[in-house]
């Protein structure tokens, strides 16, 4: 536990000293919010909501959770190349601490970004219950933890940016299109909606939207939270397994 904190503290300090990626990571969803959000406003009633941002902001938050975390592996490859990972593996620190400290940093960065994004959405017209928004942010943080662990595990296995970049892009694109992040899948024709049902992230997005609506009684919200928890378990299992493996 203590070693996790050591790794977290170091990672956090490095991020704060070199905040370029944190800023770029935040600028993108804000651009979506400002330049794409207004297009949805006139469609609000068609989408079955009185407030387009209540629909759109959860999608953008989930997108931030996925993409903000999915690319953290690149930083790990840089550390690996500098010999940092190898050196840390010869210390008595548990291998899981080397992973979890970094994941912790990513979750904190992500939460700050998500809160800023939500605050920016307020003057644009977002109206949602505070409790729902808070749970929504927790879901986004959990999602980020899962994807960050997976990203590190894949990076440690591949050890090359040239292999990691195409792989992440190949996975990210269909996942994004089939999740209803930008527009809800209720607009989709039957076959497309069925296809998107396979994508766990679609249920996460639907769940966060339900929380933003303040709809705690329906199954959608808790189903989304459950799927997120499952993704966290899966991601941590994959991550710790990779970090514990020798010569990883």
């Amino acid at each position: 536990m203590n070693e996790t904190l050591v790794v977290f503290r170091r990672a956090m300090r490095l991020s704060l000293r070199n905040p370029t990626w944190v800023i770029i990571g935040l600028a993108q969803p804000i651009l979506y919010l400002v330049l794409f959000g207004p297009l949805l406003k006139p469609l609000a009633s068609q989408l079955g909501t009185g407030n387009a941002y209540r629909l759109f902001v959860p999608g953008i938050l989930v997108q931030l959770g996925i993409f903000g975390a999915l690319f953290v592996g690149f930083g790990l490859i840089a550390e690996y190349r500098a010999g940092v990972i190898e050196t840390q593996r010869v210390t008595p620190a548990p291998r899981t601490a080397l992973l979890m400290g970094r994941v912790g940093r990513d979750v904190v960065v992500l939460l700050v970004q998500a809160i800023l994004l939500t605050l920016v959405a307020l003057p644009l017209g977002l109206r949602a219950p505070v409790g729902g928004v808070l749970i929504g942010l927790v879901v986004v943080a959990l999602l980020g933890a899962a994807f960050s662990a997976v990203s590190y595990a894949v990076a440690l296995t591949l050890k090359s940016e040239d292999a990691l970049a195409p792989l992440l892009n190949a996975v990210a694109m269909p996942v994004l299109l089939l999740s209803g992040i930008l527009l809800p899948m209720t607009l989709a024709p039957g076959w497309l909606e069925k296809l998107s049902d396979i994508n766990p992230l679609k249920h996460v997005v639907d769940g966060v939207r339900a929380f933003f609506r303040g709809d705690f009684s329906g199954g959608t919200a808790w189903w989304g939270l459950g799927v997120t928890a499952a993704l966290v378990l899966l991601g941590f299992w994959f991550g710790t397994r990779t970090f514990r493996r020798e010569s990883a």
Partner: protein
Amino acid sequence: MVGVIHARGLVRTFRGRGRGAKEVHAVRGVDIDVQAGEVVGFLGPNGAGKTTTLRMLTTLLEPTAGEASVAGHDLRTDPVGVRRNIGYVPQSGSSLPIARVGEELTDHAALYGIPTAVARARGEELFARLDLEGVWTRKVESLSGGQRRRLDIAKGLVHQPPLVFLDEPTTGLDPQSRANLWVHVSDLRDKAGVTVFLTTHYLEEADVLCDRILVIDHGKIVAVGTPDELKRRVSGDAVLLRLADPAHVPAATRLAAALPEADEPGVDGDVVHVRVPNGASALPGLLRELDRAGVPLAAVEVRRPTLDDVFLSLTGRSLRDAETPAEGELVGAR
């Protein structure tokens, strides 16, 4: 008394990649004994099993077979105990370019449970010993290659281990930084009483620095001894003839072989080399014979035995030829 390193029958076999791939026997049964206070050099061409052995001894790789005790702890049953008591300075370096020098040291120490204040005091003392004063708040990327290597060594020593592994500590350094680092490594033994196990490509380095040398080739230890003992194994001087025209190699080889007490001459491109008990006295006669046979020479050299010759006679390869990295040996390469 069991030594600082006591390894018996270490074996590491890698599964090959792809379908129908063969197993790779990187290390095939290695015994190593290192006593406290020694500086031991581990020599071998790339692909010989040097890095694999080092990674096993530092707990980064589990042996396929064999057993070892490192710094008083069993490699298999107590790897964490081994980690607590060894320092490791990898070939790839150990510090992030964008991080600050002092924090790299205190962060690393924190992973051993050393409080920041203690790490800072130790770090400043280590920096003074390694001529690294005044770099504490600088970024790692602003250091010279030699400084960076000394920072890596400081990191490897901050938890005060009795045994430190240096993987090719001077590779990539200019001759001056290399000589400077040799002094620091000698000081580790002489002033701090640290046992040092280092791999190197440079025979000169092994000669200057090491009390004992282990030579590994094809996954097996092929020789152990002090630099002098190893050199004594190679008797006589090497006479090297660089021919003006490679077409004359057969003629030159024949004449060289005819020298009294000469061994089998070898050929390396346009160079014919032969070993004789006394090179200086054999040379005038040989030159006369070559001249008579119409073999023009570009250069002549008589060499006293060096570790390179030892290496050549043990492995059939020159270390210098082996400097280009081979597959499977590059770990954490940049």
